[in-house]
């Protein structure tokens, strides 16, 4: 057992740092947000040349053949810079789904473009009333003379505002809340049957809601096995949850460093704030939260692309639950310890606070994950059709 990064991982971190220092300065990010840009194609192409868009995809498709640890390492850096480009939706979720469920043709057509940054593909799964229940799918797909016809609404599509294509989940049998009966379809985002609204989230990233009535798709648009999309969806959501934790780690570390610097610089009552024990202990508690979260994250990262769906689910849910508490504490105390300044929009810290505030709501919150952690049974996991990511997905 060992915890050190490989030389490749260290080089990747350095390359990312240099790239982000140059291309992702806070002012640039701020301008993107104010200009309502969901994504910078330049930055995205830069990511492609760093090799990170195909991070976990196999080398045969032009990917990096990376591990969950590689994803953790990359996401931590992206979190430090508050990168708003939709890395998780494209690279972790959609590319992952194509690799898990796609036919050889799907992989040949879709993956190389994704890896080179030439086109984007995101998952449109969540529906507003569904909250965090992954089996809540009311969007319907019915067969009509060899063609699929989809009707429904999808909300808060991460990366949707800049997506060239969607993977849309729709119900092909059963009723909402059934794990069986969900199927995935690929659609062009510019299809005239799809109407959408783009809006910003708390952190300035831009997302998309879509509605479609009688969206007509050919049979080749079905990705994966009919009715059996739940397991691969759950798998990529787990991986996204882990990636989100890693991103939050980078954001927490930066917010914490800003806070410690502030305590040292700020003087009141004739001395530096860093002399006051209550404030010292509060900063220490932030540090402890971050360290413990980091430790547990490594376990989730090691399992998120691993062979055991049970270990993946258990370690990811543990990490997501712990990070829920950590992100809340660190972001709240960062504001608190900055005093009045912590309440300003202008302070760079504010973007970190808003990012960390979003953490618990995406990819399953504390309640969901802690409940799942409690209720996971090893035997059950072996029979529910969870996928082993190293093999292609197969029907139960």
């Amino acid at each position: 057992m060992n915890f050190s990064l490989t030389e490749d991982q260290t080089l990747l971190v350095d390359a990312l740092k240099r790239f982000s220092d140059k291309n992702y300065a806070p002012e640039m990010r701020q301008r993107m947000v104010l200009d309502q840009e969901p994504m910078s194609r330049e930055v995205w192409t830069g990511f492609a040349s760093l090799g990170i868009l195909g991070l976990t995809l196999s080398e045969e498709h032009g990917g990096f053949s990376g591990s969950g640890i590689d994803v953790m390492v990359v996401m931590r850096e992206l979190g430090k810079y508050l990168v708003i480009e939709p890395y998780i939706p494209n690279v972790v979720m959609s590319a992952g789904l194509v690799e898990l469920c796609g036919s050889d043709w799907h992989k040949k057509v879709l993956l190389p473009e994704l890896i080179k940054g030439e086109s984007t593909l995101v998952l449109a799964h969540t529906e507003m009333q569904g909250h965090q229940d992954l089996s809540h799918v009311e969007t319907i797909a019915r067969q009509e003379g060899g063609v699929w016809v989809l009707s429904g609404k999808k909300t808060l599509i991460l990366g949707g505002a800049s997506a060239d294509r969607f993977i849309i989940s729709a119900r092909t049998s059963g009723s909402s809340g059934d794990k069986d009966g969900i199927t995935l379809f690929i659609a062009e985002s510019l299809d005239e049957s799809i109407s959408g609204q783009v809006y910003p989230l708390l952190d300035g990233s831009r997302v998309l809601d879509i509605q479609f009535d009688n969206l007509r798709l050919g049979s080749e648009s079905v990705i994966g096995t009919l009715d059996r999309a739940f397991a691969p969806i759950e798998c990529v959501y787990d991986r996204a949850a882990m990636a989100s934790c890693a991103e939050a780690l980078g954001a927490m570390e930066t917010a914490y460093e800003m806070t410690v610097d502030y305590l040292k610089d700020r003087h009141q009552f004739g001395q530096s704030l860093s002399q006051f024990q209550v404030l010292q202990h509060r900063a220490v508690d932030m540090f402890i939260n971050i360290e413990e979260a980091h430790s547990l994250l490594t376990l989730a990262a090691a399992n998120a692309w691993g062979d055991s769906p049970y270990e993946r689910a258990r370690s990811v849910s543990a990490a997501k639950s712990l990070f829920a508490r950590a992100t809340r504490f660190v972001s709240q105390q960062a504001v608190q310890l900055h005093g009045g300044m912590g309440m300003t929009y202008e302070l760079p810290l504010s973007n970190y606070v808003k990012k960390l505030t979003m953490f618990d709501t995406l990819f399953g919150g504390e309640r969901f994950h802690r409940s799942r952690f409690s209720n996971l049974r090893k035997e059950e996991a072996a029979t529910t059709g969870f996928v082993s990511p190293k093999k292609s997905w197969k029907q139960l």
Partner: protein
Amino acid sequence: MELTYSKKELDFAVEVRDFVSESLPGDVARKVLEHKRIFKEDVQRWHAALHEKGWIAPHWPKEHGGCAWNAVQRHIFDVESAALGAPRLSPFGLHMIGPVLIAFGTEDQKKYYLPRILSGEDWWCQGYSEPGSGSDLASLKTKAVRDGDSFVINGQKTWTTHAHWANMIFCLVRTEVSERKQNGISMVLCDMSTDGVEVRPIVTLDGEHEVNEVWFSDVKVPVQNLVGEEGRGWSIGKFLLSHERTGIAGVGVSKRELAYLKHLASEEMYAGKPLLEDPIFKDRIAELEIDLLALEMTVLRVASRDDSGGEPGPEASILKIKGTEIQQRLTELQMEVAGLAALPYLPMAWGDSFIGKTPGPAYAAPLAARYLNMRKTSIYGGTNEIQRNIIARRVLGL
């Protein structure tokens, strides 16, 4: 980064499990698992078995009789032996004065004392805290005055764990009054049977006796018993305190106590269902289990960083803080499971030979006392507040 145990490490776990199952006396294991009262002889029997195996000092260098296990091995041993009910060994010889003598002792001291620590022939206690010097240990006042071939010691130590079982004590004493209070402190070794040494018991919240006051009235100690340089004992004392911190996360014991908690909750009924299935109680357990998992990963991360030798870093303070919080929370939840049965105060029922009946199930009898006893963990070994001061100073640079 490789976070699965290697085959070698898994084989080692099996080796440990087999050894402990064979060599840990069953009556001792049962007492530990059921929270019954443990005596000196119980610990000595386990100590002897480990000594015979050559496993008594995993963290000592081989040249001094240790088996020089790395962090992962020490962790595996901790978890596997705790799971089977191994009692906690006395730390004062193996984890404190032993490493101190290895680092600072004379050749004569090492040659004489180290084998006796390994064999268990000497049982040590720690003369550090005084009534006026707890967290502010450097303010200590017990005096040692040079008189020919001896130091003459006068003063009082307190909170001395197992002084009533020990035959040796290592003390921080003041050999010189100086402007800076850390200067002029020396470490001396003292035989507990020396004239003038008096041990008085302190009874703790739970009604039990494990700590003491130790009074020194003109106690003569040979000058050869000075450890390191006279007047420079404070840095030796600090060295020892940082070593005290890494062992203190207690992951192995906490994992065992968590398993015990789940077992108890699966049998105790509440509203027609096992308490383990009550959503609120189940969630409390899950939160704790997740914290323990995070602590275990931190132990491995921090300890493997320190494996390259040298002193444990200040991050070890995290292990002390989180480890003790988890230990305490486990005693709270166990008490909760017992419900009303936790309240009867029947110390006789915590003895292994008790054959009477308790108002509630037998497992419940020691739980409240154990909860009270474990309130010490956030206080001893450097209070959790002091630990935060250390992290603030040495990690955050505040």
